[in-house]
């Protein structure tokens, strides 16, 4: 609909660049050479171009945001008098029908003439406004450019203006990170607060029963919904513990071997191979866990007479552990590398074997860093979603038996939010409450871990 606007703005600003630059050149000629200008001609060109595209784009974006509201309110005012007496919900219905008629183009025979008229009016109003805004945007591109053009003289500080604008853009981009965090906190917090209005915070945090089904009808039995998150936490912790008991020993030993024993040749091919594990998408691990590892564990369990459910915490935990190995190993590898060579040399010179050097000197020296990297890995394990969604199951039993199916925070978030949902039932809001807990907890872990690692690095720098 606005397909012509962007090329237009682009064309105008490119044009104004050359326009401004050539004007600067003329000014330079009349005042005795480019060196008498404050800035380079290209800066004057850039200034003209910026003054044409920035206001135009601003107007365009603001209009995009407001269009819907403005046009709808204009049309609502001119609706026939009878519909003005409708309640808010009914009015929304009428407006929706009108929009369907206007955009869908399907001539429904049941459409009342009033709606048809309103739809026509809507389209007409929209077209009128769109033409207006289109012309306005183009004017907003041309007029400031012309003003900037008029202002070009040898003392205009074009470079400072251009660089200032660019710097504002750079600052804006670096604020995106803060805005993201803010967005996460706000979106999760608000929905959680709404959830805690219907379910008390203490019930959520300490309740022992989790079954988020809400009754569809009032007389339905046995599904009032229970939002005690303890079984969910227990499952999360169980799986994380299994994963870490695979990842910590294997990852740490691999890191130590690679940094202390391995020949440079082995390092060059073994490290990238390990990093392949980190590059495999989690959904692939999930598929692997659900279709290969879980049946394998079940068969082994049955052959030694154990009852293993087909979606066991063990399978999910093991595969998650494999996934986390490269995190532990590459982070600890960095940490071990940061231990000064002089400490190694000193220990070896006293006659210690390599193992003793590692055990009594390097590991104690690197311990804070290793702990930090393990904490980061734990936060990874807790936040991991796809493996557990595909392999860990949904049953929220309070159990620490790794052969049973358990559920985790992330699995519950996914199951509560995937599919159609209403945004006022505690069921969907519960997902945001779980998200809030997950975010707070992982944020805490990351914060501590990053601080520990940073302080440790400073110690040896």
């Amino acid at each position, binding site marked *: 609909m606005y397909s012509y606007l962007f090329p237009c703005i682009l064309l105008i600003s490119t044009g104004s660049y050359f326009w401004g630059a050539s004007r600067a050149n003329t000014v330079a000629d009349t005042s005795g050479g480019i060196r008498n200008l404050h800035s380079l001609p290209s800066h004057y060109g850039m200034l003209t171009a910026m003054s044409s595209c920035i206001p135009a784009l601003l107007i365009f974006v603001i209009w995009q945001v407001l269009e819907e509201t403005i046009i709808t309110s204009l049309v609502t005012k001119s609706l026939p008098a009878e519909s003005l007496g409708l309640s808010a919900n009914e009015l929304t219905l009428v407006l929706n029908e009108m929009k369907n008629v206007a955009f869908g183009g399907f001539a429904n025979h049941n459409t009342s003439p009033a709606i048809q008229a309103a739809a026509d009016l809507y389209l007409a109003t929209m077209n009128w406004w769109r033409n207006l805004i289109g012309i306005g945007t183009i004017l907003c591109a041309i007029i400031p450019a012309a003003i900037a053009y008029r202002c070009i003289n040898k003392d205009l500080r074009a*470079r400072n203006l251009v*660089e200032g604008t*660019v*710097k504002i853009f*750079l600052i804006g*981009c*670096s604020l*995106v*990170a*803060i805005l*993201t*965090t803010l*967005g*996460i906190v706000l*979106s*999760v917090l*608000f929905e959680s607060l709404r959830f805690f209005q219907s379910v008390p915070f203490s019930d959520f945090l300490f309740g022992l029963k989790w079954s988020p089904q809400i009754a569809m009808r009032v007389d339905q039995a046995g599904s009032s919904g229970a939002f005690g998150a303890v079984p969910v936490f227990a499952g999360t912790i169980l799986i994380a513990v299994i994963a870490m008991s695979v990842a910590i*020993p*294997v990852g740490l*030993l*691999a890191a*130590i*071997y*690679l940094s202390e024993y391995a020949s440079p040749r082995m390092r060059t091919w073994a490290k*990238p*191979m390990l990093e392949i*594990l980190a*590059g*495999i*998408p989690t*959904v*692939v691990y*999930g*598929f*692997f866990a659900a*279709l290969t590892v879980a049946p394998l564990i079940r068969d082994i369990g049955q052959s030694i007479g154990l009852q293993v459910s087909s979606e066991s915490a063990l399978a999910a935990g093991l595969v998650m552990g494999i996934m986390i*190995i*490269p995190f532990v*190993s590459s982070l600890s590898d960095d940490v071990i590398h940061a231990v000064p060579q002089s400490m190694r040399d000193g220990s070896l010179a006293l006659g210690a*074997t390599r*193992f003793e050097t590692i055990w009594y000197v390097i590991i104690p020296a690197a311990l804070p860093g290793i702990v930090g990297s393990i904490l*980061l890995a734990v*936060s990874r394990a*807790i*936040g991991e*979603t*796809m493996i557990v*969604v*595909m392999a860990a199951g949904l049953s929220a039993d309070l159990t620490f038996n790794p052969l049973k199916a358990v559920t985790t925070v*992330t699995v519950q*978030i*996914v199951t509560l939010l995937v599919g159609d949902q209403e*945004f006022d039932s505690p069921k969907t809001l519960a997902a*945001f409450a779980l*998200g809030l807990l*997950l*975010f707070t907890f*992982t*944020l805490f872990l*990351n914060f501590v871990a990053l601080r520990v690692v940073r302080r440790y690095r400073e110690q040896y720098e």
Partner: protein
Amino acid sequence: MNTTETTKTNLLTPTKRLKRRYRAEKWFKRLGLTAIALSLSFVAFLFFTIFSDGYTAFQQSYIELDVHFKAEEFTQEKLASANYPGLVKEAMSTMFPEVTSRQEKKQLYNLISPAAAYKLQDTVEADPKIIGTTQKVWVLADDDVDMLMKGKIDRNLSQGDRRIRNNQLAWIDRLVKEKRLEMKFNKTFFMTGDSREPELAGILGAVKGSFLTLLITLSLSFPIGVAAAVYLEEFAPENKWTDLIEININNLAAVPSIIFGLLGLAIFINFWGLPRSTPVVGGLVLTLMTLPTIIIAGRASLKSVPPSIREAALGIGASKMQTVTHHVLPLAMPGMLTGTIIGMAQALGETAPLLMIGMVAFIVDVPGSITDPAAVLPVQIYLWADSPERAFTEKTSAAIMILLTFLITMNSLAVFLRKKFETKW
């Protein structure tokens, strides 16, 4: 006594204690080697299972039918309104005239995929002159037949335990003997979108959805990431604000990806009212997710440009901005590109946040633009992995193979770039 013992010990013959120490050393070394071997064998095992499950999906069973395009079927004006399923059934019945009972006939027709009728329609529409003649047409076999042909259904099981009945087995054997049932390269898999019928399900829709999503991600996260890295590394004053931004970025890099999905759901979909299940929203969410990676990589590569370059440029009168745009940024660009490619590879493999914004819908059509509902590759894998049909397992593995191929290509490109443009100052 002590002294006598020390004089007795020869330094060349190891004492018990020394032996123990050496033994510990050896064991520890072996333990480390085992750890590495273990993790590498995980990689090998994973790749092996995926490949051995998935390579069969690139072939598909086709059955040759002698279809008589009876002229009386095509009396209506539109070619599409002819009874194509009837033609398929008739062709099958003429091939197996001995099948008469209703139930057996139904089992016979079940050997052919429902897609066969569309194939006939396409054939007729491509060349209407064949009406009235008998043509040999290769049509898709049903997924159960396909599984049998690939040896994934065990013939030796009793009839109740397998999805192919004994009489069907006999028919299939006859078809194979007559060379009417053959395996051919599976073009459908690369040409279509998702389907409930495994033999019709294809990957094109998901590949295109992934492409559109990554396009959005790349076109937003690269400029923003580079700009943020440049500001933080080159311009930012050292104060509390910059510290806050830095801590923020490091923390965001470690926030679980599903949280970004919650953000997308609450803000992009519920608050801004962007359409669900579309590459725009997916791209926006993945942008926020990959930004920290790109910013951190960008800062590292800006840091590796030596200060002498900056000083030289400033010394001959360049402004701060000119120093950065003319000298520092071009030198840091390879590193930034590497970081960006790694971030994109991460985004390509990401599933969880996309589940939150509704990209799990069953979508048959190949998306045409960024506002069409679309699936992406990892989500397609997740959906297929959940499907009960046996035939979807091999499709899932094949899709994983394709996804891994893309990822490995991207990562090798990153490694190549790093190797090629690595400058030692």
